[in-house]
């Protein structure tokens, strides 16, 4: 009789034991967090290694004499199908060095003071119909890295749209934003910042 009572207490103890330990856990996290033996990121054993060959995008060379296939809507013209292939062109950064376009803080609007420079770029492009153009967009350091990468692109695109409005077809113009990563001046004052908020022109002459 006494033993029977005692024996009943053992399973009861076990039930209570497991029942109580079950109460200790907190709420389950929303996202599974891998445990020690899970698939969490571990100390790197390998690095780099062979990078598999990448297929370069085929870049169509637009015939500058044809009408543009890119339809402008709402002042916004799609970009060409790919970047200009540097195996087909030589870069010339000096041709339009004096035509670098400058912008106000946090803005991508083309100021009236800058329009003449873009017009002289358009004149040249019309006179050299086989050339292409890359426009680089840049920012001062007063924005975060990715915000500036987008702002730099808007600046390059604004210059491109202005050239398109002057009759240059969109297929001849590509944009590359560097955000704040390629400053013209390394100071931390308005003089340096003003020089960094810019669009630069890179003329591409076809290799013979």
């Amino acid at each position, binding site marked *: 009789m*006494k033993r029977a009572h*005692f024996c009943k207490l053992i399973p009861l*103890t076990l039930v*209570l*034991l497991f029942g*109580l*330990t079950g*109460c*200790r856990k*907190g709420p389950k*996290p*929303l*996202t*599974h*967090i891998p445990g*020690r033996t899970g*698939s969490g*990121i571990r*100390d*790197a054993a*390998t*690095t*780099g*290694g062979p*990078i*598999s060959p*990448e297929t370069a*995008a085929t870049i169509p060379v637009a015939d500058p004499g044809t009408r543009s296939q890119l339809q402008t809507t*709402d*002042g*916004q*013209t*799609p*970009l*060409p*199908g*790919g*970047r200009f292939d*540097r195996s087909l062109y030589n870069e010339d950064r000096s041709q339009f060095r004096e035509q670098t376009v400058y912008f106000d803080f*946090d803005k*991508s609007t083309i100021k009236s003071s800058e329009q003449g420079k873009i017009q002289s770029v358009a004149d040249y492009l019309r006179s050299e119909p086989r050339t292409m153009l890359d426009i680089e967009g840049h920012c001062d350091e*007063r*924005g*975060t*890295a*990715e*915000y500036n*990468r*987008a702002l730099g*692109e*808007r600046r*390059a*695109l604004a210059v491109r*749209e202005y050239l398109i409005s002057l009759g240059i077809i969109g297929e001849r113009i*590509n*944009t*590359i*934003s*560097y955000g704040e*990563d390629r400053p013209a001046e390394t100071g931390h004052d308005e003089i340096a910042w003003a020089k960094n908020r810019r669009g630069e022109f890179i003329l591409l002459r076809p290799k013979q």
Partner: protein
Amino acid sequence: MKFKTATLVVGMFLGGLVLTTLSEAAIAAEHAEEIDISRLTRGLIKPIPIALSGFSGEVASVLRFDLEVGGFEIVSGEAAQYAVNGSNNGQVQGELRVVVTKQSLLNNRYAGGTLRSQAHNLADDIIEKITGKPGISRYKIAFKGQSGGQTEIYISDFDGFNPIPVTRDNALVAAPCWVPQKRMLYYTSYKGGGPDIYLHDLNSGERRAVAQYSGLNTSAAVSREGVVAMILSKSGSPDLYVSSGNGTNLKQLTRTREDESSPCWSPDGRHICYVSSVPGVPSLYVISAEGGSPRRLRTAGAGRVSEPDWSPDGKYIVFTAMRREFEICIVPAEGGDAVTLATGEDPSWAANSRTVIFSRRSKGKHVLSLLDVPTKRMKDVAQNLGSCSQPNWAK
């Protein structure tokens, strides 16, 4: 007689168990700091005082660092609420006690790996026992490292140790982003002549371009289902797009004349929070991953905002306020008043929804720093790499 004694013994045992588990629950509940913005604003959340003894050298440094980042303050015995006593002769061993009751909460011995990784494991176990939240020391960070004129993508431990270069292209790089639960990284690289998005498998070393359209391809962010959000300007303006993990099934989600930038995912993979300059001032928006009308997110008091990151528990969004200085701010995920946490930019949440890594400018270069959001305590990460920025914490 025997029966009564046995009942008494079992009764005391059960009673002891109940007391132990209840008090452990109480400890965990007291210190399971969910971020409470109203308490944050009033500076009410204090670090938990803890004493360490018996450890030396690198193990002691790791324990101190990890606990301080975890919301603890290392104090001497008298002032401590908890005490950890242990040793590191050949392997790390540590016992955690409640000071007042001398109750032992854990007593572990670690094996394998390095002493440093064992120390990280002990710190994680201590933090998990007291706060109820899992530790974060084994989750890697990725970042942009600049040394001399060269930038590359690096990964390292969250404390900056063991940095390993992921790229060796001598090309401008930006915006690394871990694929959830995988050793794979998206990042932006200019190695192809302009900003393109790549997916890099760190196990095989294989890398493939995911978006290399004309113009801008940047700011890749990955959902837990592997859907990639990104900023592309191929249609004539920087807009928000989504695609499958390899870049196929591309879908444009925004179509504005202004720029969109820095998307991040809700943890359930159903929404994207991103920046848009449509209102004239860069502001946060939330849009369904399926597309549709975006909803503006209130970030009252923050001004021009950028670089949001959504906490893994879904509750909060941290971001950078672009004021005279950059400042890390937080709002509830449904929007609200912005609370300033620290000077810095580009915040990224840890898996615990409590710690944030970010970068701050110091003496002409960027430095990575860790923030414990509830206590607002900050610690810089160790780094020898020159300038480090755009950190992203694996989850």
